């Protein structure tokens, strides 16, 4: 699915020349942020004096900044660059590499990672950090990293043990113990 829309003003005379395109993600993100700033501003109008001045100023400025950017996105979208030469991966900027990495992920990739992370955090809430870390480590290494069960369980036990040793024994700091209090 394309993330760009051809700008109507440019569509008509686009013959032969590079047409300007509205960058849809920028449009959506800026619209959401504009909405956030407007809501924040409206909420701040209900507060008294000193509590309201700064939030009013900040949300007002934010609304102006995002509205002006929205105008830019809608009516003055940048011209697409000339086709770029084939730049080797290592020569690209880090931001560019990150952008391309996430851009090239499939829906399945996103769902898989969300499921693994979601599973970990659900286990964290219910069983606490130790069960969550050990179960996640063993399962993830076995099924995602294709490691043997032996390796996965040993890694999981060592990681759980190191966390226990550092946080419970040495530093005596609390860690999430879950709804079942297994921490």
């Amino acid at each position: 699915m394309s993330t760009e829309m051809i700008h109507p003003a440019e569509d008509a005379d686009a013959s032969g020349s590079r047409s300007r395109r509205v960058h849809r993600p920028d449009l959506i993100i800026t619209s959401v942020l504009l909405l956030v700033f407007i809501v924040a501003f409206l909420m701040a109008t209900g507060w008294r004096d000193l509590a309201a001045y700064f939030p009013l100023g900040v949300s007002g400025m934010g609304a102006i900044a995002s509205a002006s950017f929205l105008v830019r996105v809608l009516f003055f979208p940048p011209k697409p660059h000339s086709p770029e030469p084939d730049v080797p991966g290592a020569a690209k900027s880090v931001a560019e590499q990150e952008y391309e990495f996430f851009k090239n992920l499939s829906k399945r990739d996103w769902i898989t990672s969300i499921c693994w992370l979601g599973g970990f955090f659900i286990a964290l809430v219910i069983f606490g950090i130790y069960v969550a870390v050990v179960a996640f480590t063993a399962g993830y290494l076995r099924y995602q990293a294709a490691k043997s069960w032996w390796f996965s369980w040993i890694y999981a036990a060592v990681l759980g043990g190191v966390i226990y040793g550092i946080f419970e024994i040495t530093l005596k700091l609390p860690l999430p113990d879950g709804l079942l209090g297994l921490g």
Partner: protein
Amino acid sequence: MLDAIWSALGEAITPMSLLMLLIGVVIGFLVGILPGLGGAVTLALLIPVTFGMDPVPAFSLLLGMYVVSAIAGDFTSILFGIPGEPTAAAMVLDGYPLNKKGQAGRALGASLASSAIGSIFGAILLMALIPVMRPLIMSISAPELFAAAVLGLTFIASLSGGSIHKGLVMATVGVLLSLVGIDPNLGIERYTFGSLHLWEGIGIVPVVVGLLGGAEVLQSMLDKDGETKTIVAPHLGGILVGVKDSFRHWWLMLRASAIGAVLGMLPGLGGSVSQFVAYGHARQTSKRPEEFGNGSIEGVIAAGATTTAKDGGHLVPTIAFGVPSGASMAVLLGAFLILGLNPGPEMLGKNLDVTLSLVWIIVLSTIAAVILGYLLIRPLAKLTSVTGRLLVPFLVAMLTIGAFSNTSSLDDVWIMLVFLAIGVLCSRFRWPRIPLLLGLVLGEILERYFTVSYSLFQFNWVSRPGVIIVELIIAAMILFTAVRVARKKRASKRELLTIGGHV
């Protein structure tokens, strides 16, 4: 004075003091490497250990740990892309890309060397300011602090990664997020939506960990063929290259140290602000600004020097007035009182030897940290050759514990997850993350000092001499950035014309 300096050194190198210093350094390394476990928390945990101790050994333990945790925090930023300390966030920006290029050793070497110089610079500044500490601090009031925070905001342009407009919007989002919580003036709930946890506001730790570390963890999770991991095998022989790089950029190292130390002196403007200011300054003055964010050694040096230089600065108001410049110094202030020391004139007269010992402790713990760090660089840098997926369980655990440690609440883990999602969206759609972080850090400071300034002087404060100086610096910075942007645009137009592209 010279006698007092040498006598203080004598106290700092007694066997007991050195033993405590060593213990502090080891704990500091561990604490610094683990994300989220800040120096303030560990200081609080260590204070009971110091009951009944003499002041100098006690501070050897406390200050030794504190100084080293900042240095070690940079290690995690470079190796895993997750800041070990909130004050190590700027190190991620260039340290981690250098690691990805197989130059982990170089980045770690540069970080260690610049941190060492920054620390010693801060200590010397502390010593030099002892005679003029009180009048100097008295001349700085809320308006100057507000102006300094605004100065910090002007670095958004350097941290926006190409789109200043997007950077401005994100910074404003950051400032807005800093307003979440109970209003400090009237006690009104602002943007808390009924959440008790949000009464305290949004902590910087879960935001830093989620925003910067989250995208990295997700990349490691989804990395099928190891492309995002070390492209080149880590070149450990580069440690000395990194050290040499630091000294080659000695002027930058000193400037960044000065920024860290001076901003460290100002209450509220902690290390998170000073590192971004120093980083932005390094980028603005660099001959190769395009390398910043992609593995610039100058970025590593600026961030490293500031990380430790701020510590000497932090101690200035703490010692001179008993005014802590941040959470860690507030805890340290508690240690002063527990050990029977009264911050203020006594520390500059009757207890001058203890004050000077603190300077030596900073220097000695830095030297110990450099030695320990040098010994640990090789085994630590080898971790970078581990494939991404093997690190995922470790990184996920670190993200979770790091966020949870902020207030020992799962709510901070959810906040971290929200910012993880924001960080990933920013990477996916090319929106800058760092301005948001800068806005969040500066927002609370801006509001606090603006309110105090307005209450004290209405708007007359804008013409105070100190404020005018900062205003001039801000104007010069904006002008400098505008000229630079215009030149860059002109150069790229010329380049397009040269290669026959359309303009």
